[in-house]
C-alpha cells in the first residue's frame, strides 16, 4: 500500500468527516427550520429512510445515466432549498441552486480529464453535498431525531456496508458508477494521481451524530462525538486497507465501509454518555440555549394553506351544557 495515498486519503476524509458536522452544528444552534404542527421523528421514520437508503443503491446501478442525474438533481435541489431557505428569498435561492447544479453538470461534461477539471468538479460537488448534509441533518435533528436513533441507524448501516462490501460487492460497483458522474453523492478531492472521497451517507450520519450528541448531552456530548467521528469515522477507516486486504482491490478504487467501523463505537459512545445523565429533548435543549443567551439568528416562517383540524375548544366541550 502506498503510504502517501493513505495519508492523502486520511486528510481528505478527516476534513469531510469533521467539516460537515461542525457546520451542521453551527447551523443547528443558530437557525430554526420550520416544523410541522404535529409530529416527532420516530423509529418508524428511520425504518422508512433505511428502506429507502438500502434500496437506492440498486436503483442507481440499474438506472440509465440521465435518469440517475435527474434523480440526484431533484434530491439535491430539495436539500439545498431546505438549507438555504432561512437565508435567501426564493427569488435568489432558486437561481443559486440552479447555478450550482447546472455548473456541476456542465463541469462534468466539459472539464474532466485534467486535474484542474477534476478539482473544479469537486469544488462544485463539495459545496452541494456540504449544503445538502447541513440541511438534511438539521431537518432530522430539529424534527426530534435522538442520538439513540442515530447510533442504531449507523449500526444497521454498518452491517449493510460490510455485507455489500465483502459478501456482495455492490458498494464498489456503486463507487465506480458514481465516479465522474455529475452530482456525485460524496465529498472528495484529487491531487495528482491521488483521489479520495467520503460518501454522503457517512457524512450525514456523522453530522447527525454530532448534532444529536450536542443536543442530548451538551459540551461533553460534542467532545465525545468529534472524537468518535475523527477516530472511528475517519482515521481508522482510512488506515484499514493496510490490514484488511479485501478492501484494497489491488490499490485501485479503494472502497471502505466507514459505518462498519464507526457504528459500534457510535453505539458505545451513546451508552457511555447515557451513564452521565438522560438525553435532553429539543425543548430542554432550547431552554438551555436560551438560558445561555443563544437565540437563533434565522427562523423559517412560511405561510401556507393548511386544511384545519376541526377541534372544538376544550372549554366548549368541557363545560358547555345547554339549557
Amino acid at each position: 500500500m502506498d503510504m502517501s495515498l493513505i495519508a492523502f486519503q486520511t486528510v481528505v476524509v478527516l476534513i469531510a468527516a469533521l467539516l460537515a458536522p461542525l457546520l451542521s452544528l453551527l447551523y443547528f444552534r443558530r437557525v430554526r427550520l420550520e416544523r410541522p404542527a404535529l409530529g416527532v421523528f420516530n423509529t418508524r421514520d428511520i425504518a422508512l429512510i433505511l428502506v429507502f437508503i438500502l434500496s437506492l443503491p440498486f436503483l442507481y446501478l440499474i438506472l440509465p445515466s440521465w435518469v440517475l442525474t435527474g434523480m440526484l438533481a431533484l434530491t439535491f435541489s430539495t436539500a439545498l432549498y431546505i438549507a438555504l431557505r432561512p437565508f435567501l428569498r426564493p427569488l435568489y435561492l432558486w437561481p443559486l441552486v440552479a447555478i450550482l447544479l447546472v455548473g456541476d453538470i456542465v463541469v462534468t461534461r466539459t472539464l474532466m480529464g485534467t486535474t484542474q477539471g477534476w478539482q473544479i468538479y469537486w469544488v462544485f460537488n463539495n459545496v452541494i453535498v456540504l449544503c445538502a448534509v447541513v440541511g438534511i441533518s438539521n431537518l432530522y435533528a430539529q424534527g426530534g431525531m435522538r442520538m439513540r436513533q442515530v447510533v442504531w441507524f449507523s449500526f444497521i448501516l454498518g452491517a449493510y456496508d460490510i455485507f455489500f462490501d465483502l459478501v456482495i460487492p455492490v458498494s464498489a460497483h456503486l463507487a465506480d458508477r458514481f465516479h465522474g458522474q455529475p452530482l456525485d453523492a460524496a465529498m472528495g478531492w484529487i491531487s495528482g494521481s491521488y483521489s479520495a472521497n467520503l460518501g454522503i451517507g457517512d457524512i450525514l450520519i456523522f453530522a447527525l451524530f454530532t448534532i444529536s450528541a450536542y443536543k442530548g448531552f451538551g459540551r461533553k456530548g460534542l467532545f465525545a462525538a468529534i472524537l468518535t467521528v475523527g477516530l472511528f469515522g475517519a482515521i481508522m477507516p482510512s488506515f484499514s486497507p493496510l490490514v484488511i486486504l479485501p478492501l484494497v482491490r489491488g490499490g485501485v478504487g479503494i472502497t471502505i465501509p466507514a459505518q462498519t467501523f464507526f457504528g459500534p463505537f457510535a453505539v458505545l459512545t451513546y451508552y457511555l454518555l447515557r451513564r452521565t445523565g438522560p438525553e435532553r429533548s429539543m425543548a430542554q435543549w432550547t431552554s438551555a440555549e436560551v438560558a445561555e443567551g443563544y437565540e437563533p439568528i434565522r427562523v423559517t416562517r412560511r405561510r401556507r394553506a393548511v386544511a384545519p383540524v376541526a377541534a372544538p375548544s376544550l372549554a366548549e366541550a368541557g363545560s358547555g351544557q345547554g339549557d
Partner: protein
Amino acid sequence: MFETGIRQFRMAMAMMWGWHIKPRIIEHMVADALKTLEEFGSAGDDVQQLLDGPFADPVARKEYQMRMVQHTARRLLRRSPYYSKLFAANDINPDKLTLENISRIPITRKEDLLEQPQDFLCSGVQPAMSTRTTGTTGRPAEIWLSKYEIDLWPALAALSGLLRGELLPNDCWQVNISSRATAAIQINATIARLTGIRISMLGIIPAEESLDALSSGDERAPTLLATYPSYLAQLVKEARRRGLSPDSFRLRRIDCGGEVLSQALKRAATETLGPALVNDAYGMTEILPMGARLCNQGHLHHDLNVGFVEVIDLESGQPVAPGELGTLVITPYYPYRECMPVFRYDTRDIVRNLPDEPLTCDLAGIFATSTIQGKASNLLRVDGRWVTTRDLVEVYEALPSHPWPARFSARAVGDHIEMVVSEEALDQGVTRAQIERRYQERGLDVRIVDCVTHEQDVIQLRPLRTDLLETTFARRT
C-alpha cells in the same frame, strides 16, 4: 412524523369534503400531539392555522360553508324523518341551498325537539347514549348520541386542548358540573384518558368540599377547573370567607360556560383563586361539538369548522344588522353530528352582531359576535330598547356587597324595570337607591321594588345551575 403527516392529510380530506372521520385517527393524532409536546415543548409552526382553518379568506370560508351546508342538508333529507318532512313541506332542494337562501328553511326550536324527539333520530344510526339538557330554563330536552359521536368529540376536544395549550400533560382537572350533564362528563373523562391528565369529577357538591379539593394536594392540586359561573361564585365566596389567596391554589385556568359570567366575578375569581385566565366559553348539548371561545378583546369567536352560524332577528327571522341583538342559530355539520342532528337550531342565546369593521384581536380571522347576553326568554323591552340578562347581571355583581351569584327577578313595566333583589345585595351598607343609581349610570331605569330574605325565595328569584346540588355524606361526619 411521516405517519402523522398521513393522518393529518386523511383528517383534512375528511373535514374538507364532509367524509366520515375515523375517531381512531384523531386519537392517534392526540398521541402524536403528546409526543410533540414532550419533545419540543410546543406544537409546530402551522398549529394556529391547523386549528382555526384558512377562514381568514372570506371566499374560501364561504365556499366551505356552502359545501358543508348542502352536504349536511342532503344527509338530513335522506336520513332524518323530521327534516325530510320539513324540506318537502318547504320545497327545499339541498343542492340549491346557498348561504343567502338558507333562511327559507324554518328554524328548529327546542319545542320541536321536545314534541317529536323520535323524528330527529337519523335512520341507519344506532343511538348509544342519551344526554339531557339541564333544564334550568325550561323542560329538559333529551339528545341521543351514537358511539361515533361519543368517540369523535372528546378526541377532537383533546387534540384541540393540547394544541391550544389549554391542556398540559401534567395538568390536574377538577370538574364541577352537574353529573346529569352526561355528554360533558363523558367528553371530559375521555379527554383525560386520551391525554393522560388527572381528572377529578366532583359534580355540583357543596362548595366547601370542592374548595377543599382545589386547595389541597400541594404539587398534585388541580390546575384546571371547569364549572358554571354560579358555582364559581360560590367557590370564590367560600375562599374569601376562609381568607384564602391565590397562593393557596395551583389553578392556571378556569373554564366557565352555561351561564352569564360577569366581569366582576371574573375579576374576583382571578384575585382570589389566582388563575391567569378565566375563560367564558360557549357550548350547548343540542349543537355539540359546535362552540365558541373568547379572544383577548372579549369577542365570542365561533368554530366555523364544525358548523354554520347565523345571528337572526328575534321577530323577523332575518339576519341582524351590525351592532344589533339577535339569537344564535346554529347548524352543526355532518360528519360532526350523526345520530340526532339539528339544522338551523335556534339556541335562543342572545348575542350582538359586531360592528362591520375589521377585527384586531388575536382571533381576528374567525367569525365573532359579542359574548352571550342571556336567553331570549329573559329579554326585557323597555322604552323601545332591549335589556338583556347580561346588562342586569354586570351591574348587580359589581355591587360592593358582592351578591354572587346574582339573584334577582326583573320585569319591564312601561318605561322602566322593576327588580326584586336578594337581601345579600344590600349588605355592606348598600342601599336600594345606590343600586338604582348604578343602573342609571348604565342608562337603565331600574327600580328596586322588593327585597327577598328567605333562602328558598332567593333561589326562586333566579334559578341557577349551582342549585343542581348533589348531596354527599362528607359533611355529616
